């Protein structure tokens, strides 16, 4: 029975990796064969980014049970850190791939550090209060980045947060230009890197969930008082989940930032945070595969409906409501259970056959 238990999680995880890899391979070859329209090509990297964001937020909301409305804030930190690092390393690091990687790691690290610092006061709160404070954090980050100037001149690198424009000396070149955001960004992001990011995010989150730490995090979610009573340092584990989530969001943000030639801070506003939360809720709290699927579908859906112009957001809302209603209906749940049961039986039969 122990073996069966272990196999179950291994099997479920393998299914997620397999699905993601399959999706990547199909899209990659379709892209190479020129079968994708230019707009579809544009979706590839953001899909990867939003999958990573949804999975990392699911760690916080679904698995740790902490409602955070500031995920876009971490994404923004990662994006602008990544842009600055990539710009500074231009000419120093030859390989674009390596430069992108360093930018993403840098974005993740800074986002993680800020997540830790913010976590110290914020994680004293719970539930609705935590949601409100993280919301405020996201907005603060957006506004700080909106007033952030960074650039290089002959004297080196300068950075300032001011409401008046920062002046640069001779040979000055802005990387981030206050409210105008980052312009002239070299588009380093590639679809394979997006795929690697998704794999890395899944690897971290899935391995975390199925470990001692993950059990402790889930225990804190299910019953804080009981978790404390068996010797779990509740604050430390909420912090761990918060920081890991922030690091992953920062890395995704860096990839996102380096996917566009210009980007402004307003992209990382409350709406984006809510969108990511919608992906998580739709995919199911704590359901990683659900997050992957729902992030993909719900990102592509409004984009694909652009031809409908103003009606698309209405349709998007209708789709969200219908999905919610259907997945909650007991009848639908029953049918889904029957189908998944049949599938799992097929799997088991095959296993028995191969074993025998």
């Amino acid at each position, binding site marked *: 029975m122990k073996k069966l238990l272990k196999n179950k999680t291994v099997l479920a995880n393998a299914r997620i990796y397999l699905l993601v890899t399959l999706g990547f391979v199909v899209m990659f070859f379709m892209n190479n064969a020129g079968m994708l329209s230019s707009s579809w090509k544009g979706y590839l990297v953001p899909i990867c980014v939003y999958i990573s964001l949804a999975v990392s937020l699911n760690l916080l909301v679904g698995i740790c049970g902490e409602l955070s409305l500031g995920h876009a804030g971490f994404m923004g930190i990662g994006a602008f850190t990544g842009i600055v690092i990539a710009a500074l390393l231009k000419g120093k690091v030859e390989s674009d791939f390596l430069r992108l990687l360093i930018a993403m790691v840098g974005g993740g690290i800074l986002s993680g550090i800020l997540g830790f610092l913010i976590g110290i006061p914020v994680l004293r709160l719970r539930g609705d209060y935590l949601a409100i404070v993280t919301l405020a954090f996201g907005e603060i980050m957006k506004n700080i980045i909106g007033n952030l100037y960074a650039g290089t001149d002959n004297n080196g690198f300068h950075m300032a947060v001011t409401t008046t424009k920062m002046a640069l000396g001779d040979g000055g070149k802005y990387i981030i230009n206050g409210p105008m955001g980052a312009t002239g960004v070299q588009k380093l992001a590639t679809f394979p890197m997006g795929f690697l990011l998704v794999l890395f995010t899944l690897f*971290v989150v899935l391995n975390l969930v199925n470990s*001692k730490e993950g059990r402790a995090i889930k*225990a804190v979610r299910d019953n804080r008082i009981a978790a404390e*009573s068996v010797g779990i340092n509740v604050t430390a584990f909420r912090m761990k989940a918060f920081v890991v989530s922030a690091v992953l969001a920062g890395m995704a943000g860096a990839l996102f930032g380096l996917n566009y030639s210009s980007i402004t801070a307003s992209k990382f506003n409350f709406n984006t945070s809510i969108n990511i939360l919608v992906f998580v809720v739709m995919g199911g709290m704590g359901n990683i595969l659900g997050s992957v699927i729902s992030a993909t579908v719900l990102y592509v859906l409004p984009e694909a409906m652009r031809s409908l112009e103003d009606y698309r957001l209405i349709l998007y809302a209708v789709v969200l409501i219908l999905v919610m209603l259907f997945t909650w209906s007991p009848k639908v749940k029953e049918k889904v259970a029957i189908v998944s049961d049949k599938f799992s039986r097929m799997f088991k039969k095959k296993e028995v056959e191969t074993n025998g």
Partner: protein
Amino acid sequence: MADYPKNVIQVPTYNLFREQDAGKLPVLDVRNLGIDFGGLTAVDSFNITIGPTEIAGLIGPNGAGKTTIFNLLTGVYQPTRGSVLVNGIDIKGMPVHKVNKLGIARTFQNIRLFSEMTALDNVKVGMHNEIKCSFIASLLRLPSYYRAEAAANMKAMELLDFMGLGDVADKKAGSLPYGVQRRLEIVRALATNPSIILLDEPAAGMNPSETAELMHQIRRIRDTFHIAIFLIEHDMNLVMNVCETIAVVNYGKIICKGTPEQVRQNPAVIEAYLGKEDND
């Protein structure tokens, strides 16, 4: 007050040591404990000493402050007065999880399991501090992770089997019947390697046959793990049969301490439970 063996080192005369524990360091030593909520004194001058392999009971009418005492002993509340020594260490100012590490584990009156997790995982959460496997090792799935998990699984299954819960290891804790949940909570508490466990109404909601089984199991826990047990219970049959020493509280104060026989005959106890006899 009942006088009971006095041949004990270090501890004052209010102790209730079993003879077999005499001369050993008490696992739980509570001195003059008290807590006020605002102007209300919920617990006052509560003293008890529990030996390393003692089964002690705490009884009293509803609202007497029994659960408050448990919350004080486990660090959930900080006492206004007095001290709690677990294995000789004062728990003053410690957070709950650190108090647990000193060797005191508990169950709850209203069951607090991790209801979305399997029974096995509930026990493994209890073993959290015992599983030695670093964050990085489990993230990268190093061999040490698999070794630690295999060992944890084995021990958790052993503990579950010990309480007769081996069959429900992979069931969600929240879906288990009430009596099974109560026993699972005890297993989870045992998994923290305690030197004393506090059971808050372990027989609540159980039928007579389940209660009889529980009595047997409580003794078996003590005899197998050589730990002390301190329990709150309203089922007098269980208390009188299982506990070697009993403390009775009313209005936050101890009104009697002693063996089951002594408690049963104590007029103050009878008064607390049945009211005063009218002599008019």
